[in-house]
């Protein structure tokens, strides 16, 4: 494999590649993210942002208590988020555990949701603590069941102890399993990587290894998709594009619960990576509660008043 000509697959070349990255100044990154959070998005641009955000949602349920019934309900919501308004776009995908993939895919197809993807969390999500054989099988199972997107976690233990080549090889192997059948999203769990330098390093590592998307978090660790972390990842995909002319997607997940947060994410995309990234094929938001807040804000713009939460469906 060529890895965009950036690394040749050896540890030496990977170390050289990662060593060439500039550092991230935490204070500066925090300040830039805070400044962009002051953007005031109103009226027509707010309406546009809400619909765009809806189409980018990876509607997620990742609970031990998930059942076929719960997943089917989620799929119905994903296809038609607002049953009273057909102009509301479908979400980008539903995101579920491995064993729920087939149920989700079948149900989506049944209700006319062929255009909505099914993302499966993989590689011993959320901890990533399993053997490579298990991780590969986990991914194969999901793809065989009809997953069109694989959200894999990296081995943070390996990353934090400097065994970057192990993390790289893992991504390469899962990339091979996905082949052309599924999009690969690589989850860093930035709350465990902690520093922005690590986030930048992980971003470049995953992109060279073949990720289609880089994703902040599992949603099981806090902090998750903070604005500065997403900023650093957006800078990484922008710079990677300069190097390779390939656009890698970004998926913040965890902690984005309301419309304001989602619009702040879109502003970050717009002013960092650029408007080219403002589409579901290059930006997704992993969320569950967010969708209903987007719907309520949308209704507010159209109707001029806030409706009771009873006017949006709980799932």
């Amino acid at each position, binding site marked *: 494999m060529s890895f965009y000509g950036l690394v040749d697959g050896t540890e030496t070349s990977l170390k050289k590649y990662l060593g060439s990255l500039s550092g*991230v*100044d935490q*204070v500066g990154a925090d300040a830039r993210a805070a400044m962009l959070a*002051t953007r*005031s998005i109103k*009226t027509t641009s*707010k309406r546009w942002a809400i619909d765009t955000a809806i189409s980018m949602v990876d509607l997620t349920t990742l609970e031990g208590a998930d059942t076929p019934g719960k997943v089917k309900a989620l799929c119905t919501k994903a296809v038609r988020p607002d049953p009273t308004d057909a102009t509301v776009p479908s979400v980008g995908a539903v995101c579920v555990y491995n064993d729920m993939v087939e149920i989700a895919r079948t149900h989506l197809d049944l209700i006319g949701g062929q255009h909505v993807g099914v993302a499966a969390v993989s590689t011993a999500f959320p901890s990533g603590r399993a053997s490579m054989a298990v991780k590969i099988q986990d991914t194969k199972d999901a793809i065989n069941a009809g997953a069109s997107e694989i959200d894999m976690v990296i081995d943070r233990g390996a990353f934090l102890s400097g065994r970057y080549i192990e993390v790289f090889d893992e991504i390469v192997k899962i990339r091979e399993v996905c082949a052309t059948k599924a999009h690969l999203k690589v989850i860093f769990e930035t709350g465990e990587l902690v520093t922005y330098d690590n986030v930048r390093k992980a971003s470049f590592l995953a992109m060279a290894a073949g990720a289609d998307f880089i994703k902040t978090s599992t949603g099981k660790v806090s902090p998750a998709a903070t604005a500065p972390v997403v900023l650093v990842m957006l800078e990484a995909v922008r710079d990677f594009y300069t190097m390779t002319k390939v656009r890698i997607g970004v998926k913040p997940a965890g902690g984005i619960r309301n419309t304001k947060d989602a619009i702040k994410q*879109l502003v970050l995309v717009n002013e960092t990576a650029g408007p*080219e990234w403002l589409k579901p094929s290059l930006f997704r938001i992993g969320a569950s509660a967010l969708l209903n807040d987007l719907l309520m804000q949308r209704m507010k713009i159209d109707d001029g008043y806030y409706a009771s939460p009873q006017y949006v469906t709980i799932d």
Partner: protein
Amino acid sequence: MEEKLSFEYAPAPESRALVTIKPKYGHFIGGKFVAGSKHFPTINPATEEVLSQISLAAKADVDAAVKAARKAYTTTWSKMSGKERGKYLFRIARIMQERSREFAVLETLDNGKPIRESRDVDVPLAAAHFFYHAGWADKLEYAGLGTTPKAHGVAGQIIPWNFPLLMLAWKVAPALAAGNTVVLKPAETTSLTALLFAEVCQQAELPAGVVNIVTGDGSTGALIVNHPGIDKIAFTGSTEVGKIIARAVAPTKKSVTLELGGKAANIIFDDAAIDESVEGIVNGIFFNQGHVCCAGSRLILQESIADEVIEKLKNRMAKIRVGDPMDKNTDLGAINSKEQLLKIGELSAAGDSEGAQRWSAPCDLPGKGFWFAPTIFTGVTQAHRIAREEIFGPVLSVLTFRTPQEAIDKANNTPFGLSAGIWSEKGAKVLWASQQLRAGVIWANTFNKFDPASPFGGYKESGWGREGGRHGLSAYLKGVSHE
């Protein structure tokens, strides 16, 4: 077919209705607004709309103001305990916070700076200066400036148009805390927030004559500088005027502090965090349209990263939102005056004719008002005028260096020495460079950070004395050596 994507931000204007601007203003003398005789217009530089008529103070007005200040000093302010003075300063600070939106809107209308900056920087920092100095008022004996520090008496203060309210706060707060009374003159083009501040003084029931505000142009400034009834002069403005003031006060007993021009070097080493450095460059030169005496107007860039940084910088500059200063999403507002716009244009033309390469961010500039697109010149050398003279606008000169010593030599090769920036992830290099640079304020991995507790001021032709912190306080006290 790829859909063309764009995320247009709808206009998000702050409400102009928050302020009431009178058609005509007088001076604030002895606690009262008094009518002026001659007037001149003050305009909104973003629209050229006349906002109000400002009085041009003549000798009689300045005499009256100095007299009121002297009376207040002798009868009230010098007799009052520091604790009581502090109460007034705290009260002023709180009222400024309460009326912060009003101040921000008025500042933006009169000055042309973006509402985001007046709202998030100018006004909160101005209030912070009053809070900070309020705390000093009853602790002067413990400031390490001698056991019985004493006020000068009447301070004459002349401030610039780039940060009208903030510069007022830098001047008035320490003067009052130290026990002086003041006669202050705001800049000709930006008097409105100072006049609103006069209302705040009334609201705070500050004793009459402690703060006097006379408006006018350079002739009014000269009357203050040369007034025999004034004990101390504090000036912020151009080096040219600073020299005139220095000459004027030299044969007198007046004490003086000058905060003048700058041509700050912003040095980026190859081991810097590049994206944050680019932000620092943008903040350094495009903050407040570059109307900042400590602006990082000379980018001194290590040659090995020059192409990468310049490409990223151009990319970033293309995202700067230029336009209506009242829009909450505007990053770069209007140039403060036609005169300043001409000066920026003249120096930029010199850059072209001396062989530097100009690049301006693509942006639509409004038809009315005074505007200048964010601009960089590459291929600049030490000998270019745009590397030596203060442009005081959104124009950056880019120079390169090969070794750290060369960066320092270039940075120090200027008659100015107000500020400098250093960008490197190597702590030892930052400390070394900061010891070599001859500038009053040195920022490491940041730029344009201000705090009332931090002394600010220049080396060489950038000025005398410091403002802010204990050092700034000492300038308003007698018999204290000025470090």
